[in-house]
């Protein structure tokens, strides 16, 4: 199998902070295969969220290229980038980023509205997805009326609305307790194995380790090392009991 879905070439991202320039990414080269579950790990400030933003076309690199499905993202038009975000990727964020004015159902239908799907079809799909994440009975609640774990479930359902081939999850468990976090990880893993969705997750949650196919350690804006699942088996044993 050598079907590369994401490839970055010397990606550099600099932020200007007053007169200082902060180099958040210092030349990142990674390749991610279709169907993989990848965890980008590193301490906060390591640049993993910045890399996450580059892969998801949420921000532009200062230098370097990002290729998704073989397409150079910097050569896409605004309309193509919008379509890319709408159809190809599902985003899950640490702070859920649900629209407070829309119900769980309304949040899940929104990407389908942008995709031009008919009202009947999108209502059916939203119900199906919310059922799948275990929120069938709370569909018409506003996000403020849901717990953290439930909100993240809505976000997952929303991320899947347009059948993306990639799910990007930025610290999806950081605001959740251990058990809820575990449930969310299991849910994301299920998507990966059952639906073949490529999952790219920025995290420093050790529970993410045992579900990942590969772990990319990011430090100071550079790829420190890339570990395969079998290389981390021993470490998993140490953290496995955490959620019990």
């Amino acid at each position, binding site marked *: 199998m050598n*079907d590369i879905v994401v490839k970055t070439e010397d990606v550099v991202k600099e932020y200007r902070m007053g007169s200082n320039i902060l180099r958040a990414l210092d030349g990142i080269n990674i390749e991610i295969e*279709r169907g993989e579950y990848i965890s980008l790990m590193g301490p906060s400030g390591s640049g993993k969220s910045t890399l996450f*933003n580059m892969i*998801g076309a*949420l*921000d*532009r690199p200062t230098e370097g290229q990002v290729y998704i*499905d*073989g*397409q150079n993202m910097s050569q*896409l*038009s*605004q*309309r*193509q980038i*919008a*379509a*890319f*975000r*709408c*159809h*190809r990727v599902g*985003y899950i*964020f640490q702070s859920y*980023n*649900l*629209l*407070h*004015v*829309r119900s769980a159902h*309304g949040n899940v239908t*929104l*990407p389908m*509205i*942008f*995709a*031009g799907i008919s009202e009947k079809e999108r209502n059916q799909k939203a119900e199906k997805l919310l059922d799948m994440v275990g929120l069938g009975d709370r569909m018409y609640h*506003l996000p403020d009326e849901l717990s953290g774990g439930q909100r993240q479930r809505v976000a997952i359902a*929303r991320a899947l609305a*347009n059948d993306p*081939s990639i799910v990007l999850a930025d610290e999806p468990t950081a605001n959740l307790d251990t058990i809820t976090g575990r449930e969310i990880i299991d849910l994301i893993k299920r998507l990966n194995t059952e639906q073949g969705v490529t999952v790219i997750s920025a995290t420093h949650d050790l529970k993410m380790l045992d579900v990942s196919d590969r772990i990319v350690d990011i430090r100071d804006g550079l790829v420190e090392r890339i570990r395969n699942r079998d290389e981390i088996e021993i470490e998993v044993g140490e953290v496995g009991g955490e959620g019990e």
Partner: protein
Amino acid sequence: MQQRTPIEEQIDLPFVESLRISFQSLKIRFGRSIITTAGITLGIAFLVSVWTNNEIGVALQESGRQTTINTFEETTEQGISTKDIWLIVMSLIVCVVGIANSMLMAVTERFREIGTMKCLGALDGFVVRLFLLESGFQGFSGALIGALIGTLGAVLLGLKDYGLDLFFYFPLLPAQPENGPMQLGVIIVILLGCILGMILAVIGSSFPAWRAAKLPPAEAMRTEV
């Protein structure tokens, strides 16, 4: 085996869909919408009351019924006192600043929402259109209520100054007195107030909305208010 389908172009949403989303947003955010709209109402009420009051003053002056008003004030050739001009200009400034401020705040606190919508595939133009519709509606309804309140205020003030004579000479429609300035009439003043409120609200919100829509989503979502 490799999936290399080219990335298509994002479609434009039908206008009805934008309309539906913006009204839904206004409805659920009702309390906050009311506060923003109240800002517009106050600005326009102030402007229209001063302006209408002035129209009434001039109309009664023309009729020869004017009694005490302006006696001690310097009056310009057109019959409007400098104090009145000063008041109208001041109220216009208060109105512009007040409306621009409330719209700016209302949009800035929604930067995150804008970023999120872009993550889900919204085009920049769609985001701007949503805010244009919301603010246009808020601007018009706020300004209409403000204009009516302002007119009512001016009428009550006029009743105090001129008594029931006010109704005989009420400057409802535009008029061109023989040797005086063109009078717009209260209806035109109300109309201008509504248009002004709507334009200010739309400019006040679509400018920051456009700026936020142009930002990469990651940056819009990072913005803290």
